[in-house]
């Protein structure tokens, strides 16, 4: 049975998860083993989600949705052995200092932080293994 506050569900009947928080307006306290759930959706960055992983199997043009100031998303990107080349919505993505040369490394940790509704500040760090 869902738990509600004034008629609004705050813990739902998550059949598979045993109940998920929803409609929460704020959280205070501390946490330890509380982590983002990895998501995979080739070519799509939905900033409703905190963490993505993607293994490219072709050159891929990403789209980004739900850009809301303050939201952050991490993409763990494997460009594969080829390597394949990712491309980004340049009108929205703002790399610092410049967009990296993706072929320099196979693995990338891409950090995205939404500064405005059409402005995502991005850093990308390359790894070889």
């Amino acid at each position, binding site marked *: 049975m869902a738990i509600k506050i004034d008629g609004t569900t705050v813990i739902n009947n998550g059949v598979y998860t045993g109940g998920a928080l929803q409609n929460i307006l704020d959280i205070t*306290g501390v946490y330890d083993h509380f982590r983002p759930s990895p998501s995979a959706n080739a070519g799509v960055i939905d900033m409703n989600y905190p963490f993505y992983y993607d293994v490219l199997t072709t050159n891929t043009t990403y789209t980004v949705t739900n850009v809301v100031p*303050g939201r952050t998303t991490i993409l763990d990107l494997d460009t594969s052995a080829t390597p394949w080349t990712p491309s980004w919505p340049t009108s929205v993505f703002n790399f610092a200092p410049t967009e990296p040369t993706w072929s320099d490394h196979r693995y990338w940790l891409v950090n995205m932080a939404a500064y405005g509704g059409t402005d995502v500040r991005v850093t990308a760090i390359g790894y070889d293994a």
Partner: protein
Amino acid sequence: MAIKVGGTTVINNTRQIENITGATGVYTGLHQNLTSISTVIDFTIPMMIAIMSSNTTFTESNKNGGHTAFLFLDTGTAPYIPTFSANIIWPDSTEPTWTSARYWQIGLVCWSSTEVRATAVAYQPSVAVSETVALSGSSGSYNTALSITPNGADAVAGWKFKTDGTLFRTNITGTYNAQFGAGTEWCNDTPSQTYYINGTVQSGALGSGSSVANAWLALNVERTFQVVDTTAGGSIPSCNMLFRIASDSGGVNILATGYYAMIANQEAQ
């Protein structure tokens, strides 16, 4: 009604989780709020933004080991200089040169209740001191928006000054989807202050849906100047305008001047 565990509220009546001593599991759509600050970096706030309007000394509060926070910092077009306390420790003990960029994203990790390790990433270094307002055209060579529509469809031709600093004109079918002077007009960046526009009719007349002419209008609101042909055949509405943009509401400090025309024609058949 609040949810309590052992007499302690864990979800209050405004759907805020509180007094949590630990959490396990996973999350997806859980985001930090973006909170504006002026001078205090509060480590109970995970994501902060400070838009500086003067040189500013920042202090910290609620430091505890393990607390982390992000700070979006906009040093303005001046740019203004931030000063951080000696508690903030930078990589290689070297504080960034703040004048090298306007926008900064600063990651802050409390090493203890006193020390904070910080990293700063710069964005858009080219706009550090270069916000520019510009218009174009001359009285002998107007920039022109032309719309031609078939009989039965209103023709709209005009110019739209958007709040993000861009200028759009109508395409041939009358839709405002044609950016004009990209990266230059009317401002080369999202404006850091409120500018003011004044459109003066040189010939012709503005049509319905237009902003007021001959008045200084704040550009923190989208401003549209257009002509509309609602009748097939007959006269063709047009208007030639002089636009001026100033940094003040009285139009004393004029930054740019330009000439723009609009012609709308609903064809007879």
